[in-house]
């Protein structure tokens, strides 16, 4: 019985039952009742919203500029670290988190604008391969800049006092902050859709995505549009970072941790589609939340599996446009 790196403990009866074939009826009558399922649903929704914030940024950049920004996770990390600094700076003020919520994404979007202007512009007409390689190299550059300013220690951003409470739903109490995250996600989704469908700029964005030359010929500054779109994406990434900061520990590996899941979400939803990003984020979040109930060790593999299936069968994603 001497353990050599493997576990040999008796597993609980609950997980034993799940090892074998569980019929749907059995699953429903298990210890899980509606309130617990609802709890899983809310936690999945929370995760989904953060993923959506990230994925929407990635997807609009691809949709308009046909560039995949590997370094999108760096904006997320930068947003979180800026939130840290801002909350530290205004440590005595009770509304410091709200200041961070507004200022940090703005700063990140400025950095994004700089990156676009100095670097990305030069590669729009280059091979896709080189574009991806550039943004991949950018991860290291931005990551080390963050290391330079903030050092290697793990950082913590405290929860804003106003959101520290709990709400009770169906017998389970949830942190108020979860609903804040969900609310932000919904707000951003609505705003993005509003911008894209109703505003003039949104129309220009969609037009540049379809026919860049045409838009240029009509006299619009497409380069400027690209810069603004990239700044929007950076803003979204930074916002995701700020929003998630009070719930996690900030570390220098944050950018790498999140970027793969973002890619998967964007692909499942369809590159270029915001509705797709939202749908895919919801699916991913809930798949993970319920996945850990069913086959808890391999929840992540469901997501990889789903992304693989989508890439193979329907590369345009669930809501994306067919081949370009």
């Amino acid at each position, binding site marked *: 019985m001497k353990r050599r790196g493997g576990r040999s403990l008796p597993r609980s009866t609950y997980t034993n039952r799940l090892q074998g074939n569980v019929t749907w009826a059995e699953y429903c009558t298990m210890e899980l009742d509606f309130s*617990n399922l609802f*709890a899983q649903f*809310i*936690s999945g929704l929370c995760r989904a919203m953060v993923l959506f914030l990230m994925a929407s940024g990635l997807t609009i950049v691809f949709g308009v500029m046909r560039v995949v920004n590997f370094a999108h996770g760096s904006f997320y990390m930068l947003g979180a670290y800026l939130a840290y600094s801002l909350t530290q700076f205004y440590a005595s003020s009770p509304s410091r988190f709200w200041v961070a919520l507004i200022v940090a994404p703005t700063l990140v979007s400025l950095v994004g604008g700089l990156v676009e202007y100095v670097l990305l512009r030069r590669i729009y007409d280059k091979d896709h391969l080189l574009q991806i390689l550039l943004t991949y190299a950018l991860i290291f550059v931005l990551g080390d800049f963050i290391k330079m300013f903030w050092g*290697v220690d*793990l950082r913590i951003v405290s*929860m804003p006092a106003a959101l520290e409470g709990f709400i009770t739903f169906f017998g389970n109490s949830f942190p108020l902050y979860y609903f804040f995250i969900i609310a932000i996600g919904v707000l951003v989704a609505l705003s993005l859709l509003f911008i894209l469908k109703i505003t003039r700029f949104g129309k220009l964005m969609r037009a540049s995505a379809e026919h860049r030359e045409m838009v240029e010929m009509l006299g619009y500054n497409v380069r400027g549009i690209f810069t603004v779109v990239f700044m929007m994406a950076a803003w979204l990434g930074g916002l995701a970072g700020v929003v998630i900061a009070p719930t996690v520990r900030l570390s220098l*590996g944050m950018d790498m941790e999140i970027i793969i899941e973002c890619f998967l979400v964007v692909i499942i939803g369809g590159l270029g589609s915001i509705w797709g990003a939202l749908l895919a984020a919801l699916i991913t979040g809930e798949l993970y939340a319920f996945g850990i109930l069913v086959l808890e060790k391999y929840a992540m593999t469901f997501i990889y599996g789903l992304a693989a299936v989508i890439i193979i069968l329907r590369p345009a994603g669930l809501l994306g446009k067919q081949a370009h």
Partner: protein
Amino acid sequence: MGKLKEAMKCATLLGLAVTLVLAVTPISVMAEKPIKVGMIDCFSGGAAAFTKPALAGWKMVIDEFNAAGGFKGRKIEILTRDDKFKPDEALTHARELLLKEDVDFLAGTTNSASALAVSELARQKKKIFMVHIARSEKITGAKGHEYIFRGCPNAEIEGAAGGAYAAAQPYKKWFILGEDYEYGHSIADNFWKGLTKNDPTVEKVGEAWPKLQETDYTPYLTALVAKKPDAVYVAFGASGLIAIMKQSKIFGLMEKFPVFAFGLADSVFPKALGESMPSDVFGGSNYLWYFPESTENKAFVKSYVEFTEKGGAKDPYPSGIGAFSGYCCAKFLTEAIMKADGVETEKVIKALEGLTIDSPVGKIKMRACDHQAETPAFWGKILKVEGYPFPVIKEPIVTPADKIMPTCDEIMQSRKSEK
């Protein structure tokens, strides 16, 4: 634009050429022959929160040793290398230190896989490797050998101590929430073994194993609640512990269940968590800066704080994982060198086996059969206590190591079956 491009091209090529030339030129060390200790560890990531204090703990002892004349005039010099938490980097650095720098001793690491890999190299090259943070029990257990020494606790001791402490508590139905990697499984397994040994009536109602570097634990926390345990045991590595404790506090886990968080009592966590440090939670550590309230402990804390202040990074509360372990390891090594009256590997090994040092928490012996230091463990309920800057254990309970360590026979048996 063309000229700029040309200039950039030339600059890049020149820069690369210069760096390449410099890379191949070894740099000669111009000094009288010091005793070199090669320390490999992760100084650049989240682990730096432990490795830097550990290094400070080492340096404190080494500086004192050197100031007192060193060993027959020879001073000890610590060469550090960053393995970025990757075992193959650790191996590369170990080779560099052994082959190029010709170090006398190796020290490190935090990553257990790195420690195991370097340990194997140390065995081949017949050099002592003093482990100061890595916790896998295999290092001094099944994969141990005569050249490896560990001056810090291992997962077996820590888990078992937690289990022994938990057995004294009235909780019967347990849920285990662990980080899905070797260390997490190890401290959970050993905890469960220790707990069931002392109290066979306990029952595990569920377990959940989020992956390493998970950002969002909420689905696991909600699943945990559904299981309705009496108590929860959290088996996380240091970096993950900060994340899970933060989210648990937000989630209000401590109000729902008694939580036993392995390692949480170490001062590094309240420092890192700040306001997010939970209270009303059970935690353990291998060292508490406030207990025992002995003169030795107080003196150690004082000199450590002064030392780090001089170094520019004041660390007011020495941690167990980092500072204390580094201190103990350095003490073991320096006292062994003096006792052996030499730096030769075989002599120092003999001196280290069975060596007892005076640590701030009492005497700690380096067990001769497996080269594992018999480090005590402290457990208790972490509460907000008047006069302390952050939540601490109100009434710590000490579990001495020799009560819970596997016997020498068991260790030798496991090493034999490993071969």
